[in-house]
């Protein structure tokens, strides 16, 4: 019955077994492969946060008075706020005065005019990460297409954006893709209109801190009726020690436009924790659509829970116009702690929000993630598919809200949360909030928790796979619905991350 097809490095691959899965599992010899650091001279702001630091960051970015005022307002609110404790995560108190809020490579003191002028050491960093900063290059893994797809990249290194590729080609289509600090200078009217309009300055503790000290990030504007000619992408790299990264992303999709945006992140291995508190705001006007995909692979800390990134992120999309559409897809494999709830405000009638998530927590990682779907407009639709995987001593929580307002007639939500446990020392939790305030809407929520099915494992083992391979295969199958929602460029990376993140969790 079984037809032997081929061999990959000595392992027989049989029919029905995904060849890629085996290859990736084999390729992942080292554990966290992005754990190296770039040795480069940095220019730091003094440690700690204060009004002076806020002023300094604003000055370094050459910002106008209104933005400084806006930052200071946020800072004054933040000082009075209390760090939230409701998430199911435990960590020692963070000393907000014991870290740097601004770190910039010295070579970036004078802003290079193009990527060609950027310090080769910095460019090499991205080359090593497999991120193409040369316009003719493509993301690894997608070569060989008849018509290669282009991806424009904004590379953010610690507190600054190094540069953005394909700017000219994008400009032809009218698309603005640049760092937010450039946008403040070149398109102040857009920034002023939309900044903080989705995630208000004092939205929550971490978003407020970000509003005060954000250093850089990406800015995208897609004009009316434009379908962005290529995928846009931002790659975040934390390199400096004891430095927090506070980036701010603002994407505006004007009426009838479309854009697909990818985000990736990595950081070096360190014994101390580092804070990453980002804010992402998406504004979607009438008939527009944004696809936002994240592969979050910050350093997760070692097996004992030493080091790793604290990823406290606020992401929100506002579907302001009728028939606006947003799709969040996230693969969360890194970070010591993840605190992240990409949300959708479905304000326009017939607007639509989707959330697809894979969260993997291994060793001592803790993830508390989910989404909020706020249905305000009529006939709005939302769909949530969340797959949580826990291994080692990790804790993984799905926390979500579905709210149907009285005026959101005939709306629809479907939520599916599945958790998979690998090993008897980890935890998987589901905390959904469901608020239905009208009767013409339908809300359905389903959640299951199970372990890796013994029968499936046995089947794979009987076909000659070893246990880790078998688990990786079963887990990939478990995540399939979400992996399929990712753009192709990311799907590959995500699939291999699923395997790497679970390494060592069996036995």
């Amino acid at each position, binding site marked *: 019955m079984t037809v032997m097809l081929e061999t990959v490095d000595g392992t027989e691959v049989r029919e029905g077994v995904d060849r890629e899965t085996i290859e990736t599992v084999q390729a992942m010899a080292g554990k966290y492969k992005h754990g190296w650091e770039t040795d480069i001279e940095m220019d730091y702001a003094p440690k700690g946060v204060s009004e002076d630091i806020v002023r300094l960051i604003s000055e370094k970015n050459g910002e106008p008075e209104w933005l400084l005022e806006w930052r200071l307002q946020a800072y004054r609110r933040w000082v009075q706020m209390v760090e939230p404790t409701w998430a199911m995560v435990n960590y020692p108190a963070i000393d907000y005065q014991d870290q740097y809020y601004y770190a910039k490579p010295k070579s970036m003191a004078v802003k290079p005019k193009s990527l060609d002028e950027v310090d080769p050491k910095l460019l090499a960093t991205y080359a090593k990460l497999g991120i193409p900063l040369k316009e003719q290059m493509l993301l690894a893994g997608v070569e060989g297409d008849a018509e290669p797809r282009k991806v424009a990249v904004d590379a953010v290194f610690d507190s600054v954006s190094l540069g953005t590729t394909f700017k000219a080609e994008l400009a032809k289509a009218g698309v603005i893709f640049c760092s937010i600090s450039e946008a403040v200078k070149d398109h102040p009217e857009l920034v002023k209109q939309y900044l903080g309009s989705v995630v208000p300055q004092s939205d929550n503790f971490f978003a407020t801190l970000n509003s005060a000290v954000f250093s850089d990030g990406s800015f995208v504007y897609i004009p009316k009726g434009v379908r962005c000619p290529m995928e846009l992408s931002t790659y975040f790299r934390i390199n400096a020690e004891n430095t927090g990264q506070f980036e701010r992303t603002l994407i505006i999709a004007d009426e009838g436009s479309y854009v697909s945006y990818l985000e990736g992140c990595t950081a070096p291995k360190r014994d101390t924790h580092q804070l990453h508190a980002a804010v992402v705001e998406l504004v979607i006007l009438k008939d527009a659509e944004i696809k936002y995909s994240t592969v979050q692979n910050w350093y997760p800390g070692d097996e004992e829970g030493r080091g790793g990134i604290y990823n406290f992120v606020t992401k929100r999309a506002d579907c302001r116009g009728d028939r606006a559409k947003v799709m969040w897809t996230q693969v969360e494999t890194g970070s010591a702690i993840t605190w992240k709830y990409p949300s959708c405000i479905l304000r326009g009638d017939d607007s639509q929000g989707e959330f697809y998530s894979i969260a993997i927590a291994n060793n001592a990682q803790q993830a508390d993630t989910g989404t909020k779907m706020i249905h305000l407009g009529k006939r709005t639709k939302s769909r949530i598919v969340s797959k949580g995987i826990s291994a080692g001593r990790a804790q993984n929580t799905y926390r979500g809200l579905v709210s149907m307002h009285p005026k959101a007639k005939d709306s629809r939500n479907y939520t599916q949360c599945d958790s998979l446990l690998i090993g008897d020392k980890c935890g998987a939790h589901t905390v959904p909030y*469901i608020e239905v305030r009208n009767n013409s809407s339908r809300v359905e929520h389903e959640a299951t928790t199970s372990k890796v099915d013994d029968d499936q494992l046995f089947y794979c083992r009987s076909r000659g796979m070893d246990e880790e391979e078998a688990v990786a295969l079963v887990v990939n199958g478990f995540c399939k619905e979400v992996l399929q929602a990712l753009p192709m460029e990311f799907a590959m990376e995500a699939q291999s991350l699923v395997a790497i993140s679970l390494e060592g969790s069996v036995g």
Partner: protein
Amino acid sequence: MALAKVKEDALSARVAGLSLPEAAGWLGAARTDARARLQAMGLPVRRDEYWRYTDPSSLVAQDAPAASRFDPGDEPEAFDGIDRLKIVFVDGVFDPAASDDLTLAGVEIERLETAASAQIHWAQGIFGVLEARGQTPVARPFAALGTAYAKDGILIRATGRAARPVALIYSHSSDTSDAILHHCVKLEAGSNLTLLESGPAAARFTKVLEVDVADGAEFHHIRVQGRDHERRAATHLFARVGAGASFKSFTLTANGRLTRNEAVIELAGPAARAHLAGAAVGDGDFHHDDTVFVTHTAPDCESRQVFKKVLMNGATGVFQGKILVRQGAQKTDGYQISQSLLLDEDSQFLAKPELEIYADDVKCSHGSTSGAIDETALFYLQSRGVPRSAAQGLLVLAFLAEAIEEVADEVIADDIRSRLEGWLARHAAKGGK
């Protein structure tokens, strides 16, 4: 900090008018402990996460909001056809004249007050003990209030198979009564008891029921919360279920301005079973909250939660349910479903169905749905000649059926169905869409 102060003030206001029950010995000590717990917690305020969907202010207020008595007309009282031992409380005070003689084969029954004088009493290991255990991880201050301030209550110990069900009947005579009761039930290994509860009890009712089900015992609990509409109630059910034991509880709630039914169940011995179910129907300013916390401590246990609500004319239904599976509680089978049927535009359903799982070889699922009545099904029935209101009644009963199925006794299940039919007939006529 500020919140703690508000909670403390709420408590001071609530207990200002209450006199402390006198008791020495074990009962006095248990009450003193409960007072200390209560003092540390304070009473809930609107900002409390656990009271996110239910406003506790009428439960916290110093005086019970007035609630006029309700005349059920010619509707027979609940469990009328069942041969049972009746224990009657009027406005939260035991009424010996209306109650049966407290002797029953296979069961020992006594009032809380008479047990206080005993040097050693079986209830010592239960009274306030299960409640105290149930205070973590979430505080339940009204339960501690019940332990500290209840002057009356009943202690029931089953030693074998109870000859007939024990019925606690609560009646309501004063419009401003503020009743606090605390009962304890112990089922010795292998025993069997059915406990029935019915009636509105008081304008405001705070009740704690602690149940210890020892290995292999079977406990059935069926409650009908009465048709009084103005009343307010905060009830707590704490249970510990031993190895191979079975715990089943069903509650029917029709009407009530505010009902908060908390159930805190621990599956403490291997292969224990706990089934909790509720059917609630509400019209207008009805607010009903089921808050359930099931903990699987031992392996091979099964828990089931089935809660259904039918809401109309702006009624509110709340469900907060949790399954906690502790490390080592392998082979757990946990199931939870919460559903609401909203019969008009104004009603609302607020749910927080949680899972917290620390063991890998488990099967746990929960589901929650909310929506209007199925127009296609309604149309189908109408096309078969069933009038619209009757068709709606049929579909509502079908919706509630899964919860009522948890009532094992067919006579009682039929009685509950006919009560619901009656309620729907009366309320559909009021113009529910």
